[in-house]
């Protein structure tokens, strides 16, 4: 469950956005899109691990890809790492997206917001492999931080929206869904909470899976840092790290 993985590549693909490829035997444990790894970037520097979602799993090459935004001390340090360096990786952790919710010939709508986009890549790959049709909607703040549009386009129809209108459609992912009247059997989403909330409210009677983000301590369910409430209860809870990070819409309070 824990390994010093070797960095194969660590390159910038958009403003502050990096694509990190790691090699190691832990990859053989990685199966489900939406799972994450908990990464200790260096022995000195930040104390805690960083939860980062898996973007691409390549078991034949024993490699996985993670996309992160260099923002805080940990990810800034990670962005300076070079091929050949190692990082301490714990994982894979959490419960990912249910690929089995769909069968061949059905349609999935994948909706990603900002740094929530990466886990949808492995999801799209696995869905397409089993014959599911995918439509992809990606939302970003602005043109400079758009990434992976062409990669997603190889799996299915891909739409991009930016909040400031500098690229693609101006507005939010929900505007794209309305404008193109996109339909689906199952919706999968990962991104900021307001986006997830909007999607859950928009499609209350459909099959919707949402991947949540929360500040974590241990990443394995022991510290109770990343809990969220369950509807209609004062004390019931789910842990984002070990019960999620993917939940069915309605399962937890957003």
């Amino acid at each position, binding site marked *: *469950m*824990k390994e010093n993985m070797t960095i194969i590549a660590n390159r910038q693909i958009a403003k502050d956005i990096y694509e990190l490829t790691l090699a190691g035997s832990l990859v053989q444990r990685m199966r489900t899109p939406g799972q994450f790894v908990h990464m200790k970037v260096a022995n000195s520097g930040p*104390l805690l*691990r960083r939860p980062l979602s898996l973007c691409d799993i390549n078991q034949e090459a024993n490699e996985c890809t993670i996309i992160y935004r260099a923002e805080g001390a940990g990810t800034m340090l990670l962005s300076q790492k070079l091929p050949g360096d190692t990082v301490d990786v714990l994982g894979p952790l959490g419960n990912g997206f249910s690929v089995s919710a769909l069968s061949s010939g059905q349609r999935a709508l994948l909706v990603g917001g900002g740094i929530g986009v990466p886990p949808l890549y492995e999801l799209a790959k696995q869905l397409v492999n089993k014959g599911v049709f995918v439509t992809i909607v990606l939302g970003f703040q602005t043109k400079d931080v758009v990434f992976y549009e062409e990669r997603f386009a190889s799996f299915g129809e891909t739409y991009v929206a930016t909040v400031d209108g500098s690229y693609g459609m101006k507005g939010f992912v929900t505007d794209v869904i309305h404008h193109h009247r996109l339909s689906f059997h199952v919706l999968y989403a990962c991104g900021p909470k307001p986006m997830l909330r909007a999607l859950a409210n928009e499609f209350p009677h459909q099959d919707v899976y949402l991947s949540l983000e*929360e500040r974590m*301590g241990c990443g*394995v369910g022991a*510290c*109770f840092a990343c809990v969220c*409430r369950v509807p209609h209860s004062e004390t019931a809870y789910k842990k984002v790290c070990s019960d999620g990070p993917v939940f069915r819409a309605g399962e937890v309070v957003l």
Partner: protein
Amino acid sequence: MNRLAVELPGLSLKNPIMPASGCFGFGREYAKFYDLSVLGAIMIKATTLEARFGNPTPRVAETPSGMLNAIGLQNPGVDVVLTEELPWLAQYDVPIIANVAGSTVEEYVEVARRISKAPNVHALELNISCPNVKKGGIAFGTVPEIAAELTRAVKEVSDVPVYVKLSPNVTNIVAMAKAVEQAGADGLTMINTLLGMRIDVKTAKPILANRTGGLSGPAIKPIAIRMIYEVSQAVSIPIIGMGGIESAEDVIEFFYAGASAVAIGTANFIDPYVCPNIIRDLPNVLDELRIDHISQCTGRGWNNGQTVYCGT
């Protein structure tokens, strides 16, 4: 001879290493990583009379060499702990130290009475020092007379020895230690977290939803060492030390300060294997120091090598 075995009131420990309360849940998560029977003991998550949800998120924030937490004593309540968590833990050959919390003396007493009857609970840890709840916890941990009164009340009903967990958020921790010792405490555990805070530079708002939280991790280790050093010379009951321990060398340092066993907290979050790794490393460190038995380390920092507390 087991060089790591330690005898403390209520506790025959195969080694002096135990995960600290609140950093290990009720053991289920870390049981996926290793056999919990290798541990000296387990300090389970603070238990109150009724289930508590705790504080809103964010509940953690990172700091230089440490972390702030404000979980707020989330737990399923004493009934669920007694019917689900403790029976599950009974499959492991490891004594349990039950951390008891509450908002009133009556709540502490009721939880202590009930949980001390569980067959695998060998001692109680009286949580008078949680900084993250509005009522109880810290109030009991800052006034010696109130701490003593609570200790007496819990001692009266407990079937097992009672250790009192001291808060570092006091002016005179020795006075607190002496007060609870006189009230009948069988041991002390120290230190709990230090009250701290962080503010987001972009939003000017506190990072923790609770605004303040408890600081733990290597950042607080020197404070723990100093406090254990002072308290161990002033009391004659044993101390289970905690506060930023990450390695076998850190364990020795805590023993030198005056601890007779130690608990590992935040380090579990960084390395789930930290407890078994420390247990594995300790004999080698003892070899390097030419020390036969871990108990011989207790108090060496101030007593020139004489053994102070050795329950055997």
